[in-house]
């Protein structure tokens, strides 16, 4: 069974479109994250939720909006996609304490044309 899963795995879309990426974890963890990894492999945290509550909200454009319907799911909605949004987006989860070992999903490769 996949511990942290993301859908879709690949996403190719036009500039200006709105898209969502879904993430689910079956580890029973309380904390979930979204990361963006650019072409140089730099990993930057975007958001962190603990038990459905927003904990970390880095300097991310308002076009990005996370939603956590329950503690096993953290979805990422992106409005008005821009070329610079092209990247790999990783979802992760960790047990109770923020910053402890994180379990990453396989990533969603987003390409904005």
């Amino acid at each position, binding site marked *: 069974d996949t511990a942290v899963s993301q859908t879709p795995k690949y996403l190719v879309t036009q500039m200006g479109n709105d898209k969502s990426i879904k993430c689910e974890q079956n580890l029973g963890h309380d904390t979930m994250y979204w990361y963006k990894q650019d072409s140089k492999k730099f990993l930057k945290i975007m958001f962190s939720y603990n038990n459905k509550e927003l904990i970390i909200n880095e300097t991310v454009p308002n076009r990005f909006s996370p939603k956590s319907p329950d503690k096993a799911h953290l979805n990422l909605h992106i409005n008005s996609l821009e070329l610079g949004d092209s990247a790999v987006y990783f979802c992760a989860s960790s047990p109770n304490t923020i910053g402890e070992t994180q379990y990453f999903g396989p*990533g969603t490769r987003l390409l904005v044309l």
Partner: protein
Amino acid sequence: GESVGLHLPTLSVQEGDNSIINCAYSNSASDYFIWYKQESGKGPQFIIDIRSNMDKRQGQRVTVLLNKTVKHLSLQIAATQPGDSAVYFCAERGSYQKVTFGIGTKLQVIP
């Protein structure tokens, strides 16, 4: 971690040799450090961690060393194998439990 330039640092190692991957961290208040391995096309995967009250921690074929004086972290891989080829990230947990990832080092194992 710290930025070391525009290109992903690369370490090439002969199969069977030991590898040492270094990481300089920025926050002297960081209390917890983690090494992750990211294989091509996959998400990062936990390798080993160390708390700031320790200098050294060993796992299976891997050792992490922490030097708080110079804010330096290293990952040693013994008897490097082709399957160790990946990008390795150090991560530090600093203020407000925020985790920051380093820039990553690409390890290439030469058969």
